[in-house]
């Protein structure tokens, strides 16, 4: 039986359909989850998709963080439940304190959509185990507030524990500290990533098929659990 990966729809989520398609293309079953319910419907993992939850007014992800579904996700994540936050999902994870730091306005002050090269640096998380360490991939980046910021202490901690999962290569799109594109929690079950793997799953509509590996990684890890 295929594993079920839930995709949460907040009001204002945009890439929920695409994330579900990526799950299915990777061989899993996508399960829609709605923000207003705290029921995880027995899914095996969850993707928090990109978009502008609640319009991203106040701060990105700040209001979504208090949605009923997030209460369940936070509890589950603290017990090892796999969670991938993409773009706005990453912002929600930071606002929820499942991941440290915050995503702030791009250094260039514009929304930026581009095909971005990344280097995968940590292949031990549930979501990145299918990559080889140091593998370079190209997936779309598209956001207005993608600049990863944290204090020096946190940065040292992330670096020394190898918790940076992906870094921008060749081009600094937004002024993130240490060119950080994505990080994980200490346990490796919660991953936040600013660029969009779900938009790089077929070469017809994306710059590569590299993004699919995030989803196949999780499905393979679930087998071993």
């Amino acid at each position: 039986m295929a594993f079920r990966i839930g995709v949460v729809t907040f009001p204002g989520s945009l890439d929920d359909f695409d994330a579900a398609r990526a799950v299915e293309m990777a061989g899993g079953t996508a399960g829609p989850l709605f923000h207003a319910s705290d029921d995880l419907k027995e899914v095996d993992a969850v993707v928090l998709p990109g978009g502008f939850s609640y319009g991203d007014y106040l701060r990105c992800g700040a209001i979504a963080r208090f949605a009923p579904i997030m209460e369940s996700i936070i509890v589950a994540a603290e017990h090892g439940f796999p969670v991938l936050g993409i773009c706005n999902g990453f912002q929600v994870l930071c606002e929820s304190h499942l991941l440290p730091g915050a995503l702030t306005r791009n250094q260039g002050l514009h929304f930026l959509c581009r095909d971005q090269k990344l280097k995968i640096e940590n292949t031990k998380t549930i979501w990145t185990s299918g990559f080889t360490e140091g593998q370079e991939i190209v997936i779309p980046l598209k956001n207005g507030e993608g600049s990863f910021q944290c204090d020096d202490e946190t940065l040292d901690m992330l670096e020394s524990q190898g918790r940076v999962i992906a870094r921008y290569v060749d081009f600094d799109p937004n002024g993130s500290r240490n060119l950080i594109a994505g990080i994980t929690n200490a346990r490796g079950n919660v991953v936040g990533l600013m660029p969009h793997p779900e938009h790089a799953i077929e070469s017809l509509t994306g710059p590569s098929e590299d993004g699919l590996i995030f989803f196949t990684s999780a499905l393979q890890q679930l087998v071993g659990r």
Partner: protein
Amino acid sequence: MATIVVEVMLKPEILDPQGQAVASALPRLGFNFAKAVRQGKRFEIEIDGEPTPAQIAQVEDAAHKLLSNPVIETYVIKVEK
């Protein structure tokens, strides 16, 4: 050293989606005190010494030309020590 503060708000008649979003999130978290919420911007401009009337006038000019969009926003200028 003094700080000249410029607070920019959307004009009352202009739709404020940000404020609305906050207003509707508050009760969901059990805060029921708010009748309405409007969100604005605050600029803190540091200067040396006490501000002169000429400097205030310049800030006023800058607030009109740059810090606010007079088509949809208003501003107030205050001096803080």
